[in-house]
């Protein structure tokens, strides 16, 4: 994925954390990202939204992308400033097609225990982008408290 074209950043702008493929290890990058958000004074609603989308991306990568294989790894990258938070999550799986995921809010799917992660990422983030193979996702949240955020992005998200 061309990060410069998509988000106006380069690899040098990113902090990278590599973790083993398990949910307990996922807490490490999450804690570091949340600490950075606190440092940048993101409001509680924005922090909740970012934490939720990040957990959904990590859970999907661990359980579905890497199929709970403990020999595999997850790479988390992030770049956070006062205007926006950009987070990337990459697994070592073969990927998937986001368009193939059933709508979890459809009546016939409400009683499914799983399948809500992708919908929640899209609902809570300013934008969500997958690479071509689907094993890497980028989550962008514009800081609604920042005067430079666009009005449309600040108003139509939770």
């Amino acid at each position, binding site marked *: 994925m061309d990060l410069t074209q998509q988000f106006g950043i380069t690899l040098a702008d990113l902090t990278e954390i590599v973790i083993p493929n*398990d*949910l*307990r290890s*996922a*807490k490490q990058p*999450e804690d570091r990202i949340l600490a950075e958000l606190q440092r940048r004074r993101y409001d*509680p*609603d924005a922090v*909740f939204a970012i*934490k*939720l989308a990040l*957990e*959904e991306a*990590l*859970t999907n990568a661990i359980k579905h992308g890497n199929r709970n294989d403990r020999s595999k790894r997850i790479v988390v990258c992030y770049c956070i400033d006062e205007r926006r938070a950009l987070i990337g999550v990459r697994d070592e799986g073969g990927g998937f097609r986001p368009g193939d995921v059933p709508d*979890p*809010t459809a009546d016939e799917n*409400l*009683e*499914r*225990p*799983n399948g*809500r*992660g992708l*919908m*929640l990422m899209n*609902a809570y983030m300013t934008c969500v982008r997958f690479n071509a193979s689907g094993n890497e996702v980028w989550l962008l949240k514009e800081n609604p408290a920042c005067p430079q955020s666009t009005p449309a992005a600040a108003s139509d998200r*939770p």
Partner: protein
Amino acid sequence: MSTEHAGSGERPSLTVSSRREGAVRFVQIAGSVQLAEAEELAAQLPALVDQDTPSLLVDLSLLEFISSLGLSAFVNAHRRARDLSGSVHLAGARPAIAQLFRITRVSELIPTHATLDEARAALRNAGAGRAS
């Protein structure tokens, strides 16, 4: 019964406590249902629904965060309760949590009440409906 989830030396991030109130099991979930704790709750919560207590009343007033993995705990508990002719009722969710339940439409699947009193009244009415 009370269960706490935390890493070694850490303040518990999640506490789940429950007690029996007749045919209803009252459950309080406090803290954050995230990552590994969410997976454990997904197994633990449905197991609280049984023949003696086919209904759950879950106090969410102290719940600070939950992901979709945690939501699956409630969906699975709902399905188990329904199979035993019981029900799951949620109460006191904070605004961000209530919004999450609405966005996913899980609030249409599982009754969500502003207060515990409202939830208890709904459970009583549900029990009266089944008895008549």
